[in-house]
């Protein structure tokens, strides 16, 4: 529950900052930039997501030796179970 309120507070703060940027009397940024900021944040989030997935795919650890060992152990276990008369077929 606390996390929800934290997120709500963050959203309200961001909204307040954006609305304060919209006030015409004190133009800190040009108006076209301020109007494009919401969709800019969406694009930035999408880019972050794509980059995170790409980086995770790039540094994903693989262990081929362990995979071979695991397959050998599976074959050994199947042989052992079949020798002792236990049904391990898929259906």
């Amino acid at each position: 529950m606390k996390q929800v309120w934290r997120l709500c507070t963050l959203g309200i703060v961001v909204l307040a900052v954006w609305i304060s940027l919209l006030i015409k009397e004190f133009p800190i940024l040009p108006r076209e930039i301020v109007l494009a900021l919401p969709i800019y944040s969406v694009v930035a989030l999408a880019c972050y997501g794509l980059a995170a997935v790409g980086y995770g795919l790039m540094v994903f650890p693989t262990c081929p030796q362990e995979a071979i060992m695991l397959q050998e152990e599976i074959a050994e276990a199947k042989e052992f179970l079949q020798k002792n008369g236990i049904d391990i077929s898929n259906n």
Partner: protein
Amino acid sequence: MEIGDRSVGFLMLLSSVSIFAYYTFWVIILPFVDEDHFVHKYFLPQQYAILVPTFAGVLLLCSLTIFVGIVMLKGRNRKSHAN
């Protein structure tokens, strides 16, 4: 297989970084550049900065919904065959 995954990840990282840099330059920096500067030739008009991401988002949402629908239909077919 492993090399292919790694190169796909690298391509995704590279494309996302370049899209972010291009879009940042387009939206944030370009309004400060003079109207007759030669850099303006390499960017579409400002309204496309909103149009293109919106269209891409709608397209993504549509394809995701169609994919989920196809998966649900397949799952129901399989269940009815099993019974």
